[in-house]
């Protein structure tokens, strides 16, 4: 019997032995992360939904190749990233984020909410103008709250590379925000 407490490895073993419901645990556990990860790169809700679903389908069909002694998400994230970048390459488009995709955390006072909305618009414009790679690393660091180490694991690069990319991504974001304010 599988439930949300079933570990990834166990759920995958059960899926491979024919229990299709077991994969539902994996999907439920990683839907949000997968969707967001695709959203950072693609910048569009509907595309993020479609491509992240494609990634689950691809993962399900290739589950036999997965080494259950390793964590599931980095493996899945590689599939998802490849699909996202292939999607961008095919469509040759980099759609802007929708303003509604973000929300400001609870404003501390009524006067600050006006500032927050302004800032939100500037930030959304700045994020929309970043490269998918910059948006991806910004998303992982700020919105997923992942450490350098975890980002490095997900991207398959050394920590130094993560820091370097993060440095330039923030620099680009900051520059774009300054341009947006003018």
């Amino acid at each position, binding site marked *: 019997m599988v439930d949300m407490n079933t570990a990834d490895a166990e759920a995958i073993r059960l899926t491979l032995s024919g229990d299709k419901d077991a994969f*539902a645990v994996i*999907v*439920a556990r990683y*839907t*949000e992360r997968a*969707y*967001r990860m695709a*959203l950072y790169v693609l910048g569009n809700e509907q595309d993020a*939904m479609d491509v992240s*679903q494609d990634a*689950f*389908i691809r993962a*399900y*069909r290739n589950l036999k190749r997965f080494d259950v002694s390793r964590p599931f998400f980095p493996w899945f994230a590689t599939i998802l*990233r*490849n699909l996202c*970048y*292939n999607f961008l*390459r095919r469509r040759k488009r980099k759609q802007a984020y929708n303003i*509604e*995709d*973000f*929300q*400001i*955390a609870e404003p501390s006072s009524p006067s600050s909410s006006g500032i*927050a909305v302004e*800032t*939100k618009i500037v*930030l959304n414009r700045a994020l929309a103008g970043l*490269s998918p*790679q*910059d948006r991806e690393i910004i998303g992982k660091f*700020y*919105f997923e709250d992942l450490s*350098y180490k975890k980002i490095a694991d997900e*991207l*398959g*690069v050394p920590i130094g590379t993560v*820091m370097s*990319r*993060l*440095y*330039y991504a*923030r620099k680009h*974001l*900051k520059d774009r*925000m300054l341009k947006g304010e003018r």
Partner: protein
Amino acid sequence: MTHERFKHLLLKVVDGVASDKERQEFLAHIRFCKECRCEYGEFKNLEELMSTIKLKDLSEDARAAYARSLYNRLERGLGWIFLSLGAILLLGFGGFMLIKEFIINPAVSIILKIGVCAVLAGLIVLLVSVLKERLFVRKYDKYSKEVKL
């Protein structure tokens, strides 16, 4: 110590992962380095702003719709596989029978037979070539590795 190293330290200090020694070293540096001091201030401001931003969570309805759509697509995937296999078999068999009838038909001129055979051979070569290219691109897809910034 190079300036690049201080940029590295700047990140660690802003992100709160620098050791006490590294932090002291960086703070001492920005006392006389205007460039790093400005950059540190800008990064701190960005940090404060980003800490107030979060993405919307997917609603329960959206999650349920996502799961439903995913399983429908999985089912449809199987359907497409069977449909494609069946279509390939039927079309292949139908095509073979048609060509056989055409070739053995004495009423059709030999020139026409040669022409049709040449067109078919060309199509087969093109199909094999496209398949080979697809397999090659898949094998050496640059996006299958790390995507460089």
